[in-house]
């Protein structure tokens, strides 16, 4: 969403908020999906909760659409971390391995053999993503699930561009290094 306006938006107004929801909910959903490793219905709950919290706090928000997206991501991040902490206490946490595997089963026009290979790749990828730190996973999510450029990630995470590039590169190298040989 690189074309988001930098003009201030008035989120007190329900129309503006609905517009923001329409424009950003897919990114927030994917962000939570990638970061949390929760099944679809829980990701939907967290996405809905993110917007409910934002709606309650909307009178304190000031900025343009880009700032609003960053603000929503911050709320989503806090929710994911909080939920993850509670899940750990309950000893219950889904693994990205299962989530990504199950949700990418339906690969339409592939042969059965190719489909099996794809499924194995997703299973492996999910398992490797699961072992990354929050920061590593968040960078991958922003870069690939949300399609953000390095500069935008750097601004969002308040880091130099170069640091983000290096972290991303190292994380990808780690994934490759840990990828099992069959």
């Amino acid at each position, binding site marked *: 969403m690189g074309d988001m306006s930098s003009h201030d938006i008035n989120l007190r107004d329900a129309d503006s908020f609905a517009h923001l929801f329409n424009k950003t909910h*897919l990114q927030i959903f994917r962000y939570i999906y990638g970061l949390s490793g929760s099944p679809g219905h829980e990701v939907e709950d967290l996405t809905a909760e993110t917007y409910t919290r934002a709606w309650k706090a909307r009178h304190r928000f000031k900025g343009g659409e880009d700032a609003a997206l960053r603000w929503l991501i911050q709320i989503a991040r806090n929710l994911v971390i909080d939920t993850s902490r509670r899940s750990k206490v309950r000893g219950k946490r889904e693994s990205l391995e299962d989530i990504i595997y199950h949700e*990418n089963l339906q690969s339409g026009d592939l042969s059965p053999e190719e489909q099996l290979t794809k499924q194995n790749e997703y299973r492996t990828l999910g398992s490797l993503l699961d072992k990354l730190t929050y920061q590593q996973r968040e960078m*991958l999510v922003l870069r690939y699930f949300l399609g953000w450029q390095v500069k935008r990630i750097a601004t969002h995470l308040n880091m130099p561009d170069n640091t983000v590039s290096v972290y991303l590169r190292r994380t990808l190298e780690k994934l490759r290094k840990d990828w099992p040989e069959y």
Partner: protein
Amino acid sequence: MKRSTNKPDISQIEELLEAIQPQPSNDFYHRMQSSPWVRSKSVYSTLSSLKDSLLLPRFQFAALVAGFLFLLLLIFGFVNSPNFIAIAQQIANYIMPAQSDQLSIPYMNTLTISPTTLDTHNNFPLNLEEAEDLTSHTLKLIPKSEYDLTFSGARYDPKLSALTLRYELGDALILFTQRPLGEIEEYTSVGASAPIVILTVRGVDGEYVEGGWRMYSENENLYPSTSPDDEKNMGVLWDSNLPQRILRWKEDNFIFELLVTGNHELEQSDIVKIAESIQ
């Protein structure tokens, strides 16, 4: 994805990552139809469908709408009255933005509220036992953690039943206040432009702000006043660059506040970590 070895290369891993584009289900969209911003938005469409269902003549419907708008106006007037706003905001917020970034405070009041006056050892004459004796609840404390804070006194405000514990960390000062929720509501006032971050602390919503009020010099006066009373007042300006951090949250019928000031490099995550460690 054809590959010569079993391991994908980095660009192939990137391709796999880019291909993960999950979508919410239809249930999600159905559910979001009843979200508060959609409900607020639908007042007009409700009126339109009301008109259709009642099949009222145009002038009767106009009268009905006018009556409804008048009622809304009355409610709006009430809701926007200063007293109502003050009460509502005190209930809803822990940290409240002031009307502007500049305030004029009478000297007498300044003496009682300024964080700089709190920043003296003499204002925290109580030890932990004495502090505990003054409160009717179990005292929450910041344990010796990785930050190695040193307790250096406490003070009790009987008016608010607020107990403030003073900790030192090098040149940093940390004031931890705990107060049972009661009839008197109070909040931390910050500048109108101060960004208040909503975050999760100890499993509940908290509010965090960086910066503080400081005395301003003549050329910084944003709103020069001609009032002859000014000599009795002290002007303060909100400065987001001051190394002061405030974190507030409500938990188990108590209001808690961590105020960090002085010479330090503590960031939001450190302060949340300190809050999480409180026992």
